[in-house]
């Protein structure tokens, strides 16, 4: 009998003269082909995305031998010649043992986050593998082949292999538990549990389905096994790439579509008539077109999200850099203005002394020149003061010297001081003060600065007419100061930005060249930090404007001395 040509019963090798695609159950294709594709994609994806780390290499080895193992079984189902079946069945053990060796290596490298496997592990694994290799051509692996049913009878080596496989699973559980109990902060406990249980579940399912098939002769369990194993392999991959979860989505859609196309394509082998062939072809084309579009759209969406994420990260870096620059700028302004204020105060002081004649009489011409120096220095000091305030506010160094005082007195005092400026500018002044005291708890100096600033602004931006100043009590808790002018007014489009930093009306520079656009911002910040309000009202350009400040009054009872309060309670 020529055994070389011996065919399994009922087989007709019409595919490459070696395989019969019609005798194997259809479930074989639906189970094995997607498993091979998904596992191949997963192994390559993890390898690439995890930058060829040791754990990704061992995971690749783990899935590669699993794929080869599945492929070997796949060939066994399809091959028609018993001699070829014998060859593949005989060599199956060479692919099965490395799955467990790589599973141990992968778990070890993952949980220890190491860059090398100990030599003792590697040498032990090689010696174990070598003993399995030597047994391959012997009848201890497969004792005999049943040429009628086309199956082999398992020998003792397989029994020993199953023991080794169970021991490998126990060893994986042991190293995971050991690492979990003695772990430092290098790896979260949840990752050890997930990876450990994933690998153990994968291998246990693998061993169980193989032992069950070998003991019962029901090899069809192998059709379900790979599906379960692929799920575990996918979970393991997702755990490994959890920080790159978006790529899993692209990959998942690609695998799904390719597997679907291959499965539909496999229907051609079973098409018995023209109608089936046409139907399969149409389904294949439609699935292909929709699938490719779906893949493209998923990829496009993910690319876009990745791009947005990258831009977000770039912006974060740029923002941090800008914040740093902003701090440096504020510090520089603070330093520069502080340095400028000293000499300017000296210039102003000496100019004042010269005008007052402390250094002797001067000609009117020289006196006028010194007056210009004095006024310009005064303006410069105000500007420097604004910049210094801004830098203090930005650095959070603005300090308030809070004390209770009568706002009525302060407004009176400020109006008296600035009154001459108004007369000098040819403007009328109408001041209406409140009758009762308005006690506020605030920084007297800062509030005076704000009021002076608003009156000064009103003077600068009013060419003719006058200024009305009115202080009134709105109720027991609040008082209001209104500074109304007949000046250039505020256009509605400027109003929302009026109190912003460096904000100036478009034609403001025509009237006041020295303005910095900081005065109102400083005023608003100071008043708001006193829990008050400041705002402006204007009917439009050329119709004058009103600046209003509201401040909280101190509770009348709160400034009654404690001794008086106690006396009143005792009555």
């Amino acid at each position: 009998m020529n055994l070389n040509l011996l065919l399994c019963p009922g087989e007709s090798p019409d595919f490459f003269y070696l395989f019969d695609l019609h005798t194997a159950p259809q479930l074989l294709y639906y189970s094995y082909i997607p498993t091979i594709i998904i596992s191949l994609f997963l192994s390559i994806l993890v390898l690439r995305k995890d930058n060829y780390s040791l754990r990704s290499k061992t995971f690749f080895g783990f899935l590669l031998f699993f794929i080869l193992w599945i492929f070997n079984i796949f060939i066994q189902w399809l091959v028609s010649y018993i001699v070829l079946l014998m060859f593949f069945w005989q060599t199956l053990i060479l692919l099965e043992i490395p799955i467990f060796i790589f599973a141990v290596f992968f778990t070890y490298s993952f949980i220890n986050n190491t860059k090398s496997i100990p030599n003792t592990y590697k040498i032990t694994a090689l010696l174990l593998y070598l003993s399995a290799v030597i047994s391959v051509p012997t009848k201890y692996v497969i004792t005999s082949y049943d040429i009628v049913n086309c199956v082999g009878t398992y020998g003792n080596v397989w029994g020993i292999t199953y023991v080794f496989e169970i021991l490998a699973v126990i060893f994986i559980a042991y190293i995971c538990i050991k690492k979990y109990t003695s772990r430092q902060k290098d790896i979260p406990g949840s990752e050890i549990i997930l990876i450990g249980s994933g690998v153990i579940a994968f291998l246990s399912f693998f061993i169980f389905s193989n032992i069950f098939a070998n003991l019962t002769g029901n090899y069809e369990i192998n059709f379900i096994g790979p599906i379960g194993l692929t799920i575990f392999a996918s979970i393991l991959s997702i755990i490994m790439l959890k920080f790159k979860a978006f790529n899993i989505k692209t990959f998942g859609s690609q695998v799904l579509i390719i597997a679907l196309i291959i499965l539909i394509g496999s229907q051609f082998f079973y098409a018995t008539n023209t109608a089936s062939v046409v139907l399969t072809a149409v389904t294949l084309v439609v699935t292909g077109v929709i699938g490719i579009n779906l893949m493209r759209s998923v990829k496009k969406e993910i690319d876009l999200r990745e791009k947005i994420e990258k831009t977000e990260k770039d912006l974060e870096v740029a923002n941090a850099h800008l914040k740093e620059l902003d701090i440096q700028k504020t510090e520089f302004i603070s330093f520069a203005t502080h340095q400028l204020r000293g000499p300017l105060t000296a210039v102003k002081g000496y100019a004042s002394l010269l005008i007052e004649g402390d250094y002797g009489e001067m000609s009117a011409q020289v006196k006028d020149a010194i007056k210009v120096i004095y006024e310009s220095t005064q303006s410069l000091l105000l500007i420097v003061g604004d910049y210094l305030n801004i830098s203090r506010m930005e650095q959070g160094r603005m300090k308030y010297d809070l004390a209770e005082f009568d706002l009525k007195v302060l407004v009176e005092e400020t109006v008296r001081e600035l009154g001459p400026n108004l007369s000098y500018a040819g403007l009328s002044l109408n001041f209406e003060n409140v009758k009762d005291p308005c006690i506020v708890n605030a920084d007297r100096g800062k509030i005076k600065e704000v009021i002076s600033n608003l009156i000064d602004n009103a003077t600068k931006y009013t060419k003719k007419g006058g200024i009305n100043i009115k202080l009134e009590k709105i109720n027991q808790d609040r008082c209001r100061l209104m500074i109304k002018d007949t000046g250039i007014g505020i256009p509605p489009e400027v109003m929302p930005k009026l109190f912003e930093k460096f904000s100036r009306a478009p034609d403001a520079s025509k009237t006041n060249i020295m303005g910095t656009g900081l005065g109102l911002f400083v005023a608003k910040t100071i008043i708001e930090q006193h829990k008050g309000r400041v705002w402006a009202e204007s009917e439009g350009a050329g119709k004058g404007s009103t600046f209003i400040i509201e401040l909280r009054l101190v509770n009348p009872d709160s400034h009654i001395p404690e001794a008086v309060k106690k006396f009143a309670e005792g009555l």
Partner: protein
Amino acid sequence: MTVADKIYKTLLYFVIIITLLIVGFTFYKTVLNSDFVMIKGEEAQ
């Protein structure tokens, strides 16, 4: 490279060569020579 590394490398190459030889021998023994015990279905039972 330590002594253990050298032993491992040598053993690895040895195992790869032996594996290839054994696979070749198995192919010869099964496919080309069919030197295996073959029994019919009834005998197996």
